[in-house]
């Protein structure tokens, strides 16, 4: 009978974390910024159909980096959870915190109990209403670590370089165009190459929109906003 080699739990977790981080670093990063009318999410994504940024519910959006099929599955599960809750209780009872907790639970469970952790980082963003204009940004890592962030959020393998730019140049109450421009500039810090408008995916949660706050910002509007 073969005896399994002893591997310390620290080593197991470290190996899994390294594995997940490597997978995430293979993809491109994305940023979310609070601006004067809500939250805008800017991602580098040459695909016009495979989205990284999506609508979950009336005031809630989802964004993911890393392995597409994994964060896509998480997105669909989030839409299902939110729609079920809204249908069985009330639309007002669906909130980003409950959703973010559910994601953190799932990612944490998979990280410790499954063979392979998810190679993703995700963001659950919620915009308030004109009467209660509070924004929420929940940034959740591959192991279920959950962070409640303000002003901006950076997801991806090269987050440090991008965050440095945002720390330096971010101002509250930017308008939509300025926020997208800053987000794009920050993303360019990933490898220094300029990013064309055609390679950007942008979604915004607009506080002033009545029920469904999420809107995709596409060409040619994006081109105009980037000046």
């Amino acid at each position, binding site marked *: 009978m073969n005896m399994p080699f002893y591997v310390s739990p620290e080593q197991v977790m470290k190996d899994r974390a390294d594995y997940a981080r490597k997978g995430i670093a293979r993809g491109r990063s994305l940023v979310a910024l609070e601006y004067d009318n809500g939250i805008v999410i800017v991602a580098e994504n040459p695909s016009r159909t495979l989205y990284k940024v999506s609508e979950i519910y009336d005031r809630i959006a989802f964004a993911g980096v890393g392995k597409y099929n994994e964060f896509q599955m*998480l997105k*669909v599960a*989030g839409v*299902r*959870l939110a*729609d*079920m809750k809204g249908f069985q209780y009330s639309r007002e009872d669906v909130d980003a915190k409950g959703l973010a907790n559910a994601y953190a*639970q*799932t990612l944490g469970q998979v990280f410790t109990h499954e063979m392979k952790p998810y190679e993703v980082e995700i963001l659950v963003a919620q915009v308030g209403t004109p009467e209660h204009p509070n924004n929420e940004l929940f940034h959740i890592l591959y192991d279920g670590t959950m962070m409640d962030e303000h002003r901006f959020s950076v997801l991806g393998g090269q987050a440090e370089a991008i965050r440095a730019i945002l720390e330096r140049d971010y101002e509250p109450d930017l308008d939509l165009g300025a926020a997208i421009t800053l987000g794009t500039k920050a993303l360019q810090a990933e490898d220094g190459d300029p990013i064309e408008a055609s390679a950007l995916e942008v979604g915004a949660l607009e506080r002033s929109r009545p029920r469904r706050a999420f809107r995709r910002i596409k060409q040619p509007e994006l081109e105009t906003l980037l000046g």
Partner: protein
Amino acid sequence: MNDAPLPFFGAGHDPGPSFLELLRAVAPHALPGAGLERLSSPEMPFEVTHGTTVLAVRYEGGVVMAGDRRATAGHAIASRRIEKVFPADEHSGVAIAGAAGPAVEMVKLFQVQLEHYEKVEGEQLSLEGKANQLSQFVRANLPAAMQGFVVIPLFAGYDHRRNRGRVYSYDATGGRYEELDFQTNGSGSVHARNWIKTGWREGLPVEEAIDLSLRALFAAADEDTGTGGPDLVRRIFPMVAIIDADGFRELPADDIAARSEALLTGPERGGYPA
């Protein structure tokens, strides 16, 4: 509070983009009309609340949908201000006649279904796809319909692929029929339909289509006890919505009030002195 866990499904059990299938899989008790089909009473021990006359009229730029505001339970008036015309999504609407409770639940489920599909798939269903979805919902209600809880919707929307308004009607079995020009439904529907028939023409301008709809509802209220007319005492007027290339929008109550008051001096008054 413990948050509900994320729903995951194994291969072969995934409900796909259908909210109805999701509900069947995880919360069948929350389905509209769940349990109604198991009733075995030979006759209804209480009166079911019914919504009555609704209509959809195609005009030059889209569709007008309208409904009166009365709900009845047997010979009693159950509500004077019920709403029977709802947005299904941005570019389509649904109007209901029949058992009010299951009907409102069906509309709510239909609204969630269209939005759910759009969010899961990343794009909207075609108008025909939406009409077919509603057909499934009506069919799912058939066992309850056999117990007396019949729900018959009208569905209308603006088809962006064909650049025109389209109207669909249903029967209790989920049968779906596309109407060329207009359709009415509910207890006063015959009177409303005949009225529209005499005034409808191809290329009707929106203003005329709205007035024709209001007059048709008045005609129904005039002849059918189940249909409510304009209530000048309480200022309750029919509900009217327009669906065109810009989407679904309900007309403001003031506008409908003004249009309804014009009936006071129209042929509707007949030979009665002012």
